[in-house]
């Protein structure tokens, strides 16, 4: 078992582990006592999803998945900002 096989196995294992961490974060998004808890948990899930997309891009050797990851990061950031502003002011104007 040479080093390249070990690295490929570690990337696969890392994707599965980050997926389990997403399910752990989903508990806080569902059961969080206040609204900012839920928003923070959704933001954290967005970051972890970005990590999963880049790991899958490495596993399947598809470079354009990284562009999808950039668009996903942008949409996650805009969503978090929008929800936080709506929570603070009660409107989005």
């Amino acid at each position: 078992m040479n080093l390249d096989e070990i690295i490929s196995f570690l990337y696969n294992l890392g994707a599965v582990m980050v997926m389990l961490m997403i399910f752990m974060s989903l508990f806080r998004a569902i059961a969080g006592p206040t609204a900012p808890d839920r928003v923070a948990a959704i933001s954290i899930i967005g970051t972890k999803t970005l990590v999963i997309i880049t790991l899958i891009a490495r596993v399947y050797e598809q470079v354009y998945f990284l562009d999808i990851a950039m668009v996903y990061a942008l949409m996650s950031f805009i969503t978090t900002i929008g929800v936080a502003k709506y929570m603070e002011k009660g409107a989005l104007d």
Partner: protein
Amino acid sequence: MIPGIVETTLDILSIVSLVLGLFFLFVGTLGLLRLPDVYNRLHATTKCDTLGAGLVLLSMALQSNLATGIRLGLLIMFIVITNPTAAHVIARAAYNTGIRPQLSERKADD
């Protein structure tokens, strides 16, 4: 000089960076689950997730060619800029909607 020593060194650095990144992502998730307050949770998860995601992406950038490396570098810069901004906006919204930090002792059963 041993042939292929640069590739072997980059592979070992990549493995170390990946394992450290996964560890920090796990610590951030644990902080999100275990800490008692929304400010504590933001404090724990934002820094740990930024560092963990940056290390995992750096682990892939150490092995890739130039175009993929530039894309991963842009992603790392984007994460480092936007993640603390989002946490700051969430904390400001929480403070302005009347949630105050817990200043008393923690409960005995928690």
